[in-house]
């Protein structure tokens, strides 16, 4: 039999209807819903007098708008209305909601895996582009628009044109201080923000196989920043071990046979991909983005590029525009860039391993007097885990603010935002103009690099800290 990729196996087992000249009707196993991209979809259902086909495959939470200080007192009336609307809609249509009072509330892409809703081999969608996160479990997971949210609600299916496959193979031992975030940032730096448009990426190679599940989620999370429809990693023992004790997995009565099936989903030896890129992890340095697109990124020991060195006029202009917006001079050393704010959190880097690693850098140090620093755990469960470990205390003692969970400053729909000209070291996923607040300047980094920047008030090579980060 022809060797198959993980993607092929999932695609083939989810076809509901196929005919020549049309997209494929694909079955969706899990639909995650949040407050921002769903109200218009629910309204559409009401107008057409339609129901949700599979309420047992649909779960909701509020994360984008949620305040991280006093969550019971939402001052912005429009945010409050959007959150109330989700509550009402979930009640009316019979969907399970992890609301603000739930100990399991959090960023939708953090709580899915945490609760065991995310399963290998499944198709997962959400009205959010970072749905690719769930691909770390060997699922086909991607973001959709609100019309498609409504479509999945009423049919549990989606029309999809089959994407091509892209293998990104990373080999070699990660140098100390080089994290999953640095790997994915350097991949995007390599392929560009549209490099994987039309493709689903599978990350392979020994470096990827040696990553923990949380680190794999960081990698898959940012697939969209390289233009990919989805990112995925073949399930293995690490996947199964992570899943085994998750609330909605451990109660499955046929778990052993499911696990046997899940492991077989891995791409077969010799399976063909439409495109392949090989990367050497030993050559990757801790990354810092300098521009207004995630592909505008470089190693900590490098300099901000000079547009004069670029011949392509479109590229040159985009670098000039980016430097003007970022308030940076060409050829500045990255380590000379001073920062005002540090944000540790988001669906990219707001999990417990991220917080533990950052806290190891922070421990015994103080946040620079010129820096405002906040930690926003990805979920209430992460917050609880961290508090049990005493990590909150390490952050607070150093001068960090310790907040409630949510998307927070990653996209600044809640009160956590940058002011014009304010410069942030952020563990989030997008450095677009105005992303973290109008006029705000975002530099994307790993949690440990963010922690180091908080202490020194400027970007600092985390490898200069004598701290054992274990396998992080």
């Amino acid at each position: 039999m022809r060797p198959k990729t993980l993607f092929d196996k999932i695609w083939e087992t989810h076809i509901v209807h196929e005919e020549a000249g049309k997209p494929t009707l694909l079955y969706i196993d899990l639909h995650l819903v949040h407050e921002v991209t769903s109200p218009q979809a629910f309204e559409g259902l009401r107008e057409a007098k339609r129901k949700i086909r599979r309420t047992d495959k649909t779960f909701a939470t509020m994360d984008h708008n949620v305040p991280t200080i006093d969550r019971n007192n939402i001052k912005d009336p429009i945010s409050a209305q959007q959150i109330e609307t989700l509550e009402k809609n979930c009640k009316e249509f019979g969907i399970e909601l992890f609301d603000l009072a739930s100990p399991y509330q959090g960023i939708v892409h953090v709580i899915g895996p945490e609760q065991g809703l995310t399963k290998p081999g499944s198709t997962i969608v959400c009205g959010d582009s970072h749905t690719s996160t769930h691909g770390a479990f060997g699922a086909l997971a991607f973001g959709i628009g609100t019309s498609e949210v409504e479509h999945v609600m009423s049919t549990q299916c989606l029309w999809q044109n089959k994407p091509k496959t892209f293998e990104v193979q990373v080999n070699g031992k990660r140098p100390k201080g080089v994290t999953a975030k640095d790997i994915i940032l350097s991949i995007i730096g390599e392929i560009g923000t549209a490099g994987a448009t039309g493709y689903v990426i599978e990350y392979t190679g020994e470096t990827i196989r040696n990553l923990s599940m949380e680190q794999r989620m960081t990698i898959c999370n940012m697939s969209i920043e390289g233009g990919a429809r989805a990112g995925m990693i073949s399930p293995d023992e690490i996947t199964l071990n992570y899943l085994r004790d998750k609330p909605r997995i451990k109660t499955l009565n046929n778990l052993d046979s499911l696990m046997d099936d899940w492991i077989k989903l891995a791409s077969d030896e010799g399976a063909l991909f439409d495109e392949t890129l090989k990367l050497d992890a030993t050559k990757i340095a801790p990354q810092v983005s300098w521009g207004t697109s995630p592909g505008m990124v470089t190693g900590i020991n490098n300099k901000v590029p000079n547009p004069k060195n670029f011949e392509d006029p479109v590229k040159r202009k985009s670098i000039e525009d980016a430097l003007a917006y970022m308030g940076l001079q060409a050829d500045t050393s990255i380590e000379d860039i001073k920062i005002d704010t540090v944000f540790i959190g988001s669906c990219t880097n707001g999990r417990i391993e991220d917080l533990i690693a950052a806290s190891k850098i922070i421990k015994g140090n103080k946040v620079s007097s010129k820096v405002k620093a906040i930690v926003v755990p990805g979920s209430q469960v992460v917050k609880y885990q961290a508090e049990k470990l005493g990590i909150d205390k390490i952050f607070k003692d150093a001068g960090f603010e310790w907040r409630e969970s949510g998307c927070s400053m990653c996209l600044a729909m809640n009160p956590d935002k940058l002011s014009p000209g304010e410069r942030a070291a952020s563990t989030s996923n997008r450095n677009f103009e105005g992303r973290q607040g109008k006029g705000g300047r975002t530099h994307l980094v790993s949690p440990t690099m963010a922690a180091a920047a908080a202490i020194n008030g400027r970007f600092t090579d985390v490898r200069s800290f004598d701290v054992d980060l274990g396998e992080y």
Partner: protein
Amino acid sequence: MEKFQTVISRPAPLDSSNVDTDQIIPKQFLKRIERTGFGQFLFFDWRFNDDGSINEKFILNEKRFEDSEILLSQENFGCGSSREHAPWALRDYGFKVIISTSFADILFNNCFKNCILPIVITEEKLDYLFKSTLEFEDYQVKVDLENLILSDNKNFTEKLDIDPYRRKCLLEGLDDIALTLIHEDKITLYEKASIE
């Protein structure tokens, strides 16, 4: 959905690459719970100055492009989030066609759900459209989806390559969900088979 009709308009040239959805519609406008009224917020941070006045330097604010129904932009238009608020804003503002060398995947899909036709053309041809619309006061581009022809009132004609199924949906204004429900028996069969 409304039916897509032939569009004749002078294109508005937005000379930026990687125009992301945070630029198309900034996050503070995502809190509305309606589908309508987003046009006023399109490219908000570019169209308006900090004090709320109109940014005269922004190309879409120039009188000659005020009524454009076709938007030209450089590569990777619409990258970033999945927010359908982006095409809602584009359509509500008046754009029915977007022409670029490449589009981000999710926005590309979302356009078709909102009666916007995204057209991919080569860099050379896009350059020509950019130059022409800036140069000729009487410049007009015609997008004829029925006959798959992109042309202008000079000498330019280009055959359009649009997915036939998507073309049909746009031209007939088909409701996606109703089309899917034709296959409801198959969905039910699939569900039954997966339980076993």
